[in-house]
């Protein structure tokens, strides 16, 4: 026990003795929003990038990391995540598939003993006021694996309910939750959850849509009523405080799930009707939807969990053409978006193992996405979509020192992650855990080999 305490003290001391400056020299640098530097230096100080280029003077107080044969990228951003929210159920787990944040997927509403909702006025499945920023913890055990894959930042959201809550941009390291937060409220996470036939309101997709519509009507009315009251409280009845509406009003963006082309069409029209700043997520059929998205100018977060053939299905039963085509073409979505100038980013939907993540990105690259755009779709583009490109997403002077240093290009089978820097603090990847039995990405498990 005494030894343990000593060890803990030693770790704490180590943290305290971190160098104020680190220089990675003679490395290939991919800044993401400017041309690649074949051989140069990145200088980090106090958690920020102090200098980058071919002629950076390395100060005497800096620790030096030899970058020969290595490539420095901006740290990867997982643009929809629950990292740091250990109690959150990931979409995948909650839906038993979670492919593409599908609009059709019926999620179980949060368990509750409350009587079934009788209408929008009961504010069903709504926790719009909850903020991921208030809940994130650096102790989430999934963080280390994600960081080892190259993620330095996640945009973490509460996931349950129709208005699930407000997401935060968080860096994947820190002493306390508060240290991790880069931007506390970047958007409201919306799902089209419903209770199914026989439950409370809403019990159908159209009920969820109607509920969302009424909420925005109410929010608009609420704001006007509050402003009117604030201007002249005396002699006027006060509007009742409504935290569900407060949460919606506080959210600068709203994330709306789409899966098929019809969802994209439907939700783009819906966002226009509601006059909200929308981000679509999922987009399994994005490759079929470019014409709609191009004219709309709405950014899309593309789920990296590509649709796959369900396991243990009847081998005699052959999927229909639409399903087959979707499995074949879904990974071409990022390439189609890049070609059409549609702003997008990629998100991992809980794929945290490096091998699985890179394999998923590689499929998009094989389907026509350029290597550079793949990097941008996980660095500068998500930063732009969430309005934090002034501090994250590229290797530029003054930005937060989030980097991933690899041997070999990112997203290849043999890519070796050497170091990860989060807020200027250096981490080395932990060995990857073996894939779980029957994992969906197809690597054979030991059980199958016998």
């Amino acid at each position, binding site marked *: 026990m005494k030894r343990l305490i000593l060890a803990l003290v030693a770790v704490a001391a180590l943290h305290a003795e971190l160098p104020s400056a680190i220089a990675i020299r003679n490395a290939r640098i991919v800044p993401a929003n400017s041309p690649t530097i074949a051989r140069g230096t990145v200088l980090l100080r106090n958690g920020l990038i102090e200098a980058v280029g071919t002629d950076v003077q390395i100060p005497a107080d800096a620790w030096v990391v030899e970058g020969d044969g290595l490539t420095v990228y901006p740290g990867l951003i997982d643009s929809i995540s629950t990292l740091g929210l250990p109690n959150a159920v990931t979409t995948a787990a909650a839906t038993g598939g979670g492919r593409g944040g599908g*609009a*059709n997927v019926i999620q179980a509403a949060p368990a509750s003993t409350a009587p*079934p909702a009788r*209408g929008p006025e009961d504010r069903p499945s709504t926790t719009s006021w909850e903020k991921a920023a208030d809940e994130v913890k650096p102790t989430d055990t999934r963080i280390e694996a994600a960081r080892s894959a190259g993620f330095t930042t996640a945009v973490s959201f509460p996931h349950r309910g129709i208005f699930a809550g407000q997401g935060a941009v968080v860096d994947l390291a820190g002493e306390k939750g508060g240290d991790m937060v880069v931007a506390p409220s970047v958007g409201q996470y919306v799902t089209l959850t419903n209770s199914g036939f026989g439950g409370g309101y809403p019990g159908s997709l*159209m009920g969820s849509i109607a509920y969302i519509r009424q909420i925005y009507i109410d929010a608009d009315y609420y704001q006007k009523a509050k402003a009117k009251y604030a201007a002249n409280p005396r002699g006027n009845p006060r509007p009742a405080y409504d935290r569900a509406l407060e949460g919606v009003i506080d959210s600068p963006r709203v994330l709306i799930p789409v899966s*098929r082309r019809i969802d994209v*069409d*439907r939700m783009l029209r819906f966002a226009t009707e509601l006059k909200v700043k929308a981000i679509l997520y999922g987009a399994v059929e994005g490759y079929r939807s470019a014409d709609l998205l191009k004219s709309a100018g709405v950014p899309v977060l593309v789920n990296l969990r590509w649709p796959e053939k369900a396991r243990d299905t009847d081998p005699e039963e052959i999927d229909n*053409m639409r399903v087959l085509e979707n499995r074949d073409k879904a990974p071409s979505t990022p390439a189609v978006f890049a070609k059409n100038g549609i702003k997008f980013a990629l998100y991992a939907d809980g794929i945290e193992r490096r091998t699985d993540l890179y394999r998923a990105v590689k499929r998009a690259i094989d389907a026509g996405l350029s290597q550079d755009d793949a990097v941008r779709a996980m660095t500068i583009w998500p930063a732009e979509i969430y309005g934090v490109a002034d501090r994250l997403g590229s290797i530029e002077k003054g930005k937060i020192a989030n980097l991933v240093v690899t041997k070999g290009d990112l997203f290849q089978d043999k890519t070796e992650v050497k170091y990860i820097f989060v807020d200027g603090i250096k981490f080395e990847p932990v060995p990857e855990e073996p894939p779980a039995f029957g994992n969906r990405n197809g690597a054979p498990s030991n059980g199958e080999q016998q």
Partner: protein
Amino acid sequence: MMKAFLTTLLACAVSYAAAPILIQNATILTVTKGTYKGSVLIRDGKIAEVGEKVTAPAGATIVDGTGKYVMPGIIDCHSHIASDAINEGSVSVSSMVGIPDTINPDDIDIYRALAGGVTTANILHGSANSIGGKTIVLKMRWGKDAHDMIFQGALPGIKFALGENPKRAGNPTGQRINATLRYPATRMGVEDVIREAFQDAKIYQQEWKDYNAKVARGESAVPPRRDERLEPLVEVLEGKRLVHAHCYRQDEILMLLKVGDEFGFKIRTLQHVLEGYKVAKEIADHGTGASTFSDWWAYKLEAFDAIPYNAAIMTRKGVIVSLNSDDAQLMRHLNDEAAKTMKYGGLTEDEALALITINPAKQLMIDNKVGSIEVGKDADLAIYDEHPLSNYAKVDKVFIDGELYFDRDKDIAGRPAKEADKEKLLEKEKQMEQQRRPNGGTNRRPAE
């Protein structure tokens, strides 16, 4: 941007300036203007000319109709296809929801309906609630996006439901023995729910009237909160939204007609209305339409006192009657359903065809655009290889707005290529699967 817009406009113009189509030497069943051998000329999506002799304009596409029958595209006044959701069953009044929010243009049943000669369908919310969701009329424009399927100019509707379905959730039976019960549990309750909702709607309507009057007088006023549940009911009161009411029994039919009278709104159609023959005169007096089945009944207690003469009797009593499908399969042979009314009730050919063409068009108030073969109407046509009232008849071609949406020969000819495409994809998937496994997947088998 502007340039792209212009190009789009140009493209539209080109598609509209498409060559006229002349269907020749066919038997033309106009439904409203008799039957004759001759031609139909389609120009700019409309029926431009009909007659025994029509001269082919320069550049016209000729469709040889020798031995074939041309009828107006079938209109189904009660369908649940082409939507991602049907029933918001959680509440007794679900008027805040609607099919317009969940139209699914990828539903294969749209194509299959086309193959059965259907060109227009009234897509209804389900019948779990006394007052259900909003409805919409669609044209079966397979391949178009949701918005482009909407029948422009058709009034929106709303579903009502009486009897067993809306009261079921109020009764602790079967699997609902421990479920939370929902009011109402009886037919009396259903009436009460409808009356209460319209009382609320009247108050709401008055609030807006008062507000608008104040604004008009230049006074400062706070607008009422917009209520998505009551808005459609106000539209019903103002005649801007049609009521399609699911019902079976004569007592509940009369009840609803009276509630409409009390609040000053019309029931546009009674749906199912299997006991309509008992109260046909009252239905006719209210100017209410009836949309029923030919011979589908006895699937629940309230659907037992039914006869195959229902459509014919109501027709003879002066009710505008249509036959509907309420089912994606039945939707594909509504012509057969119409034919049955000639045997049961002795309707004429034109009267029988009217049940699936001009009559549902009248019920949906779109008879100025569709429902018969007349100059100026939309070129929504179905060509059959036999008389459509014969159950040997098959649909050859279907036009909507003069555009060919179904072609039997093309469909059959295209099948081998589609099969080959599918084989290719299956093969590709198999190879990918093998690549991902070391030893090509052979290690999955137990050693011998």
